[in-house]
């Protein structure tokens, strides 16, 4: 199958600064890919290159099989783009703005009303269609931006930080919407908020200092981090007893126990390797006739992965610099 996005050796330098360094990745049709990275990692730059707003210094970029530099106008027809901060003409009414945009995007006169209505309905802005955009709340404006991205029925949606600045309820709505849109469109979405990626995307690209550090499903990333063995347990027992019994288990690496309320003790148990300790701990509790009120696995979040990977990279960078200094 022809990939929706194909990026090879993409490099972008601004006066002296390397924003993107030999970036390569592909996105297959139908995927929802999360582009994850701290501020200034190069997410927006990559998206601007994909949409043809700025060119690359080096490398090849294809969207739907078309070269972004050579067929810029054609490529733009395949992309629904929502830039960072979602700039809109504030003096226009919602429906006017969408009509104008659909004309620009070459939607035929016959289809225009239908496309505009579809986009407004899909994003839930039909009831504000006559309002002036400048007077809308941030959540509604965000949806106007999304509606605009949908107008040309593009195969690919590129959304740069679509939930930034929204309140929790609005964030949830926008996320839900993106998930729904994923059924009909390939989506590349950038964010620095991790739960967002976890909930909406089926693949994550972690980008840091203009390089791709990881590309996998959220679950695989978690698994690869090898932190399956952290277990939290709460039993009615003395703290010392709990600690001693658990430390007797062969696969336990470390136990930190502390008293909890109502005569309970709480322990955080770390395993050697990626073993699930829960069954063994349960058996210990039964054997000692302790009442058990909590037994759960410590969850690895994408946050952990992200910090882990980016820190590793920073340390490696630091090492290289040290070595260079040493060599001199």
């Amino acid at each position, binding site marked *: 199958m022809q990939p929706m996005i194909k990026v090879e050796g993409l490099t972008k330098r601004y006066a002296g600064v390397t924003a993107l360094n030999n970036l390569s990745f592909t996105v297959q049709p139908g995927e929802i890919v999360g582009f994850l990275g701290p501020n200034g990692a190069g997410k927006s730059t990559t998206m601007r290159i994909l949409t043809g707003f700025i060119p690359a210094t080096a490398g090849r970029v294809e969207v739907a099989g078309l070269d972004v530099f050579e067929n810029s106008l054609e490529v*733009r027809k395949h*992309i629904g783009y929502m830039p960072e901060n979602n700039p809109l003409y504030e003096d*226009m009414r919602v429906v006017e703005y969408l009509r104008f945009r659909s004309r620009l995007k070459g939607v035929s006169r016959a289809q225009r009303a239908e496309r505009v209505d579809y986009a407004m309905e899909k994003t839930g802005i039909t009831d504000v269609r006559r309002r002036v955009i400048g007077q809308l709340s941030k959540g509604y404006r965000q949806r106007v931006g999304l509606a*605009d991205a949908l107008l040309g029925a593009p195969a690919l949606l590129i959304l740069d930080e679509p939930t930034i600045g929204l309140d929790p309820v609005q964030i949830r709505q926008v996320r839900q919407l993106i998930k729904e849109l994923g059924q009909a469109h390939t989506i590349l979405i950038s964010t620095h908020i991790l739960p967002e990626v976890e909930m909406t995307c089926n693949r994550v690209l972690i980008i840091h200092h203009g390089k791709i550090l990881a590309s996998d499903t959220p679950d695989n990333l978690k698994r690869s981090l090898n932190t399956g063995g952290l277990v939290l347990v709460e039993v009615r027992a003395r703290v010392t007893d709990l600690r001693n019994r658990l430390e007797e288990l062969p696969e336990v690496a470390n136990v930190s126990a502390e008293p909890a309320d109502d005569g309970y003790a709480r322990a955080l148990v770390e395993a050697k390797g990626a073993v699930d300790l829960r069954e063994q701990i349960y058996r210990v509790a039964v054997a000692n006739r302790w009442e058990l009120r909590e037994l759960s696995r410590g969850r690895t979040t994408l946050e952990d992965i992200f910090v882990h990977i980016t820190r590793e990279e920073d340390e490696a960078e630091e090492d290289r610099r040290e070595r260079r200094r040493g060599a001199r």
Partner: protein
Amino acid sequence: MRNVAALLRRELSAYFASIVGYVVVMFFLIVMGVTFAVVVGYLNRGPTQLTAMKILFSMFWLPSLVVIPMITMRLLAEEKRAGTIEMLMTAPVTEGAVVVAKWLGALVLYGLMWALTGGYVLILQHFSGGAPLDVGPILSGYLGVLLIGQFLIALGLLSSSMTKNQVAAALMSFAMIFMILIVLNWMSFLFQGGVFGQAFRTLSAFEHMEDFARGIVDTRPVILYLSGTAVALFLTIRVLESRKWR
């Protein structure tokens, strides 16, 4: 072309969606109305070689200096400031279409303003006591106003493309228009005779306007202003594209 039409519609509605369009038109009508009243009062004092419209056309520089910076300052500077230029340039449209549509939009507004002064012609007709008006010089006068105006608008648009700040854009286009209208004319007075004097007189918009208002349509100023516009619009497109090679 379809894109230019869509963009032009947006440009025209933008003038009247904000208060700017109305303020500019009001300013223009006040200035021209007062001028017209003064002119008619002057002509009432006795017979003269001048016609009312001729004097009115010779005042074209006064609204140009203020009105053109006002209607062009927003065009690209505001798109850059608000970031909407990114929405525009990631839609399937070329820089050329955007620039031409914005130039046309300002030109249409400018033309509409001057069209309103057509009312003065009707007033003159009504009070001329049945004597037929000389239509030729009036039409060529309007042609001159439009011709010089479209060039100054292209300069205003160029200024607007070079900054994110509307005030800076207005000052820049004011300076350019001032140079071309006023300073060139002063120079032609300073260098009476000689090659320089001749050169400055050839370039002076006042000289051109006087010819147009007399009914003379010389192709030299026509070509001068049209090619000036082509250069200014070309430069504007290059400035817009400059994000690609910086």
